[in-house]
């Protein structure tokens, strides 16, 4: 009994060390979204492209849809772009874009160069809609269900693994919901 008591501080210390050690393995830059399971915020953005569609709250109701926040100045956005081109080709779900803190000319040129996978692109040059969505960097990707609720948020670029392992299964699951 005495020996156990003697070891108590060591045991307490080890417990704390393991707990805090796990805390260190989490990426502190990733801030969980406060908007999960919340309805899409009220917003309406003008189209980026003269010939294209814009994006507003009402567009995100009725079908499971993806919203991708991108900018031409954002290097990871360029890196993930081929995934979206493929995604649009496969027609898994409508993909909308929010062109975030960008300039019209450079964004238009960027899309001309890399291809345009988006069903509609809202131009958010001054980050007003971005703040409504709780965006704090690009790229970010949201999955919105039929009811127009945000169900998932991915921070950072999406590559093949996340696409086939998380995004596609979740779209299927949400499409199965009534």
């Amino acid at each position, binding site marked *: 009994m005495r020996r156990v008591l003697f070891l108590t501080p060591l045991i307490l210390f080890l417990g704390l060390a393991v707990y805090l050690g796990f805390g260190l393995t989490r990426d502190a830059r990733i*801030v969980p*979204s*406060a908007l999960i399971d919340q309805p899409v915020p009220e917003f309406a953005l003008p189209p980026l492209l003269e010939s294209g569609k814009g994006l507003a709250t009402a567009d995100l109701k009725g079908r499971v849809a993806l919203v991708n926040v991108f900018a031409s100045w954002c290097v990871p956005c360029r890196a993930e772009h081929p995934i979206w081109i493929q995604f649009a080709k496969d027609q898994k779900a409508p993909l909308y874009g929010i062109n975030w803190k960008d300039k019209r000319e450079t964004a238009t040129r960027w899309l001309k160069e890399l291809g345009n996978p988006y069903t509609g692109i809202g131009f958010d040059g*001054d980050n007003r809609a971005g703040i*409504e969505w*709780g965006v*704090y*960097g690009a790229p970010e990707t949201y999955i919105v269900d039929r009811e127009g609720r945000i169900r998932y948020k991915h921070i950072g670029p999406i590559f093949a693994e996340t696409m086939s392992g998380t995004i596609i299964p979740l779209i299927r699951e949400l499409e199965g919901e009534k």
Partner: protein
Amino acid sequence: MRARLSPILFAATIAAFAVTALAVEPGEVLKDPALEARARTLSSEIRCLVCQNQSIDESDADLARDMRRLVRERLAAGDSDQEIRDYLIKRYGDFVMLRPPVKRSTWLLWFGPILVLLGAAAVMIVYFRSRRRTSATAALADDERSRLDALLAEDDDAS
């Protein structure tokens, strides 16, 4: 005169820079000083999500500037400080506040240190009490007493 003035001038320049070495740009400042003061206080409580240990008042990040603008616009529109805090928390979560709110999930965070302190104090009180009790009850046995006396007597002789 010139020589005496320059240190003062130097100090004044440093002081001026110390005041203006903030992220808030001149164009952002509100005309109403009372509103601007509220904006400054509020901004110093809000975390910049890009450079996470700076407030939006201190941060030069682009996103921090957008959030400062939002705070000022809402203040000018007549929102209360709490309404602005709630607006940001709703979109960015509690993390956007540098000081976490006191609620059930943060009770351990806020009151944990006090609990640890009280616990440690309790352990110490119990420990010292039990030690005093054992020392009070352990009287010397007869042979120990006589040996001690002998040793003390020896010491007296030596001196």
